[in-house]
């Protein structure tokens, strides 16, 4: 007889379905776990590490977006240690490239900014790297500003998994990693891009934006893309 599919998240007992992730269970139970690379409907890669949780009995922290729920699990999502780690992760993201909210197209509409506010980041303890990164405005409708990219790869996954174009990818290693279009060609010269705009809609920061957007002018319409994802899931379930 299999064990009953129940676990505890922050002292709340939660039932789960086979294959569900800890993140999904937590959200269903009304427990907020911060995320950046995760987006409902896309595959999870556990890249940003913001959704780390403590699993009782394990010395290691687990990324809740890629950790399957198991019977009897005891999860803690909000401890002092986790809060500090999340703060450090956000500070590292802010220090890695050139995130200047005040002159960003996504100012006031940015998940990184919202998380930094939520985690009370009023300064960054690490040296800013100030990498010299460019802006590609060669596409007729959209632009990519690598200064604001956090390499969450939502663009890569939505383009591959939902649009089916796989225009976006990641080139390079470590600190030199960059999102690229096709084989690192200018976006405007991409043979595969369908100009659907899903990547722009899903970008959590101001890295991808409609051309002509002024500072603070980015408006997102995630409802449209969530509908497309729901349709795709429906198709895969029902052929």
């Amino acid at each position, binding site marked *: 007889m299999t064990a009953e599919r129940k676990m505890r998240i922050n002292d709340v007992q939660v039932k789960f379905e086979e294959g569900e992730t800890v993140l999904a269970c937590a959200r269903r139970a009304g427990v907020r776990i911060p995320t950046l690379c995760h987006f409902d409907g896309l595959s999870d890669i556990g890249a940003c590490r913001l959704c780390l949780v403590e699993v009782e009995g394990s010395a290691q922290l687990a990324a809740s977006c890629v950790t399957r729920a198991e019977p009897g699990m005891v999860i803690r999502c909000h401890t002092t240690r986790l809060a500090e780690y999340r703060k450090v992760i956000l500070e590292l993201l802010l220090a890695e490239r050139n995130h200047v909210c*005040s*002159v960003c197209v996504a100012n006031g509409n940015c998940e990184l900014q919202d998380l930094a506010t939520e985690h009370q980041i009023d300064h960054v303890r690490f040296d800013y790297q100030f990498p010299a990164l460019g*802006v590609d405005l060669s596409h007729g409708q959209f632009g990519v500003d690598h200064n604001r990219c956090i390499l969450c790869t939502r663009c890569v996954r939505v383009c591959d998994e939902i649009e089916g174009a796989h225009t976006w990818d990641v080139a390079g290693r470590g600190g030199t990693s960059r999102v690229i279009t096709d084989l690192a060609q200018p976006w405007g010269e991409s043979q595969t891009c369908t100009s659907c705009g899903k990547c722009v809609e899903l970008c959590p920061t101001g890295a991808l934006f409609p*051309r*002509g957007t*002024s*500072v*603070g002018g980015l408006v997102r319409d995630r409802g449209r893309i969530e509908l497309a994802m729901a349709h795709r899931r429906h198709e895969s379930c029902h052929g």
Partner: protein
Amino acid sequence: MTRTITIDPVTRIEGHAKVTIHLDDRGQVADARFHVAEFRGFEKFCEGRPFWEMPALTSRVCGICPVSHLLASAKAGDSILGVAVPPSASKLRRLINLAQIVQSHALSVFHMSAPDLLLGFDSDPLNRNLFGLLASEPELARGGIRLRQFGQAIIEALGGRKIHPSWAVPGGVKSHLSRESAQLIQSQLPELRRFVRGVLDRLKAMLDSFAKEVASFGSFPSLFVGLVGPGRAWEHYDGLVRVVDEFGRVAAEFESGRFEEYLGETVQNDSYLKSPYFKPLGFPQGMYRVGPLARLNICDRIGSPLGDVELAEFRDRAGRPAHSSFHFHYARMVEILIALEKTEEMLGDEDLYSGRLQVEAGVNNLSGFGCSEAPRGTLFHHYTVDGDGVLQKVNLVIATGQNNLAMNRTIQQIAREYVADGAFTEGALNRVEAGIRAYDPCLSCSTHALGQMALRLQLLDAAGRVIDERSRA
């Protein structure tokens, strides 16, 4: 034995600067120099950015006059798009610029310069500030603060925030004026107008007592530059650039996009501030002044009833053209009145409340010019972009820079008047600073060029003697 007197920092101005006064062997003033000691670098680090970001980016140049950069930059963006903005957008931009003039002039007159004018150049420096003014002239100080608050409230009503709004964009603006805001603006206008007219009367009555300052605070012939509108009227947002000579004759008139044909820029070895000059006369003979004094000197009329009366009186009292930079204060107060009057005129215009706000276009020109009158004078933005709209080159010609040559000459004149035989008082040095303050310089706005800067270091001993001096060109 030569000596150097250093005033560092120069106080009650926007930004960081110092003045050195060089005395010869006999203790007479050999030279006086205005050094801008800060560097901002916007011209360089904006390269590589999309030009659509520039209005908000360059508005960050300054917390006092963000609107000026916002507008000049949006206009440069219009020029790259190759569009004429809708009437609603241009009128709303005009309205916010009038508010900018009111709030910035109020800051200069009441917060920065009134302590000198009302408490006295020789008064105790501990009280010679806004707090001292509040203690001795509470109604006037409060009125000045209210005036600035009024301008800031209009900027907030339009731009969503008082400082660094990102409301004007290439092709137009983001929002209309609400009728509630208009009512609020309207309700404050009568009282503010009364207050400003009262201050103007008081200032006029005081001019005679400042005869020595009028004669020595930058009283010399020069060119004056600014925008003029239809009928060569006073202008602050659009129109032709007019250059008027020391006799009031028109030396040149040109489209603002051609400013680089007429205005050159050079650098000095001891300042981060560039020194523009009128090219046909060369450097340094092409020294010119911009700002409120210049705008009143170059226009044929104001184009509003109170403004025209005040302009006539200004010319009676100060001359046409008025040559003394001391009259910048007077001109500033006249311009506040003009701005209030023109604001009231505009509030009845339906285009402020409805109508198309923005036009869209792609990159149609690889080079774009934007020009407007900042409170401190004519402001030029020139951007060069690639075919995608990525900035390749940025040139910002700032009002304060354009007054640089005149500011240097002004402090030389004041130093020679008030420092003699190696002796000077604190009040004398304050007058040197006040000579700078008359121009209301904004140094944070005006130091952006990279790669051609020079630095001069002076080592002084306790007695003020120059022991060593190094220059890096």
